[in-house]
């Protein structure tokens, strides 16, 4: 049973359609994420999960549909309002996206310098506290190039949560990490949610990690949502494509002979 407080949606996506050029990537995606919920977005390459994330971050304008974050429709608000909204949002990018010319500590403090006028000492203590939480105590003066892959991810996570965001996006936390380090990151995500009641969206293709941290999972396939449900219901789903993904079965490609031959021979129609 769901024991959370009555619903308070932090993310409301309605009928989101997105294109890259002529190619339609998202075919009318609708998804709601509640306050304090950990939603894991899964899907293989080309499923549209990265595109969905880019739209959630306001980096892309959709073809149609709406995206409400913390009550604001980001497809309609001004750049200034998006800037203000970003104070309440944290993002940890897949590659870490730390600035190579700054120390770890400076990287973590960056959002504070951009968005606040806090005292220098307060900012330093805040950054060190987050590094402590991420088990990176004492690494603040190192350069990102001196860190391991797992440390870079944790430093990026420290920066993403330095402002204590209401909403955290985490792109592929486990990509390229060994299982132990990846499990540690999962643990950190759970601790952040439990202590701060943060709403967290994690994009991943790692099943084990998704099952461990998710309250609900949404699975994307070819630009459509296959299922959005609890971990248990996703596991037990009788939708074939869901089970294929869980069991890592390759998808069967329908071959349209005519179209295939046209593509190979370069004929337009």
């Amino acid at each position, binding site marked *: 049973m769901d024991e959370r407080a009555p619903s308070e949606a932090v993310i409301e996506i309605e009928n989101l359609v997105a294109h890259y050029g002529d190619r339609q990537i998202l075919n009318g995606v609708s998804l709601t994420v509640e306050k304090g919920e950990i939603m894991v977005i899964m899907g293989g390459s080309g499923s549209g999960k990265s595109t969905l994330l880019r739209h959630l971050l306001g980096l892309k304008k959709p073809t149609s549909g709406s995206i409400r974050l913390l009550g604001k429709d980001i497809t309609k608000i001004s750049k200034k309002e998006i800037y203000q909204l970003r104070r309440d949002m944290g993002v940890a990018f897949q590659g870490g996206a730390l600035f190579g010319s700054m120390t770890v500590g400076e990287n973590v403090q960056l959002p504070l310098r951009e968005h606040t006028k806090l005292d220098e000492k307060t900012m330093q203590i805040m950054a060190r*506290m987050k590094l402590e939480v991420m088990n990176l105590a004492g690494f603040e003066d190192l350069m990102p190039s001196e860190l391991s892959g797992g440390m870079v991810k944790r430093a990026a996570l420290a920066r993403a949560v330095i402002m204590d965001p209401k909403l955290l996006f985490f792109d592929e936390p486990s990509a390229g990490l060994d299982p132990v380090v990846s499990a540690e990151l999962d643990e950190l995500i759970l601790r952040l949610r439990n202590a701060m009641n943060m709403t967290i969206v994690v994009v991943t293709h790692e099943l084990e990690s998704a099952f461990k941290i998710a309250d609900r999972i949404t699975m994307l396939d070819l630009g459509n949502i296959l299922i959005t449900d609890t971990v248990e219901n996703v596991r037990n789903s009788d939708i074939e494509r869901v089970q294929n993904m869980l069991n890592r079965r390759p998808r069967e490609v329908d071959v349209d002979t005519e179209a295939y031959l046209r593509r190979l021979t370069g004929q337009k129609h």
Partner: protein
Amino acid sequence: MESNVSTEGPFTVIALAGEVDLYYSPKAREQILSYLNKQKNVLVDLSKVAYIDSSGVASLVEGYQLARSKKLQFGLVGVSQPALQVLQLARLDKVFPIHGSVAELIDNK
């Protein structure tokens, strides 16, 4: 949000209330540091705090550090559940002297 300051025995009690966030914590910080700079023993009452963010906690850390360097007493009282969770996240619940209430602290002296 205004902090409420009172004197109880040897302590200056600064009671924070509401949401101690990026806007409120610079004021709270200034207040805590100014009493310590006046050589006062400071207790920060968190019983009416609904939310405290990292900037608020950082201000408490700075206060505690200053108190130690001046050999003054510093502690937290009536730490509310939301505040405690944030302290626990950074393991600071094991660092700060935490007391149930001001009365309890004075009685035990």
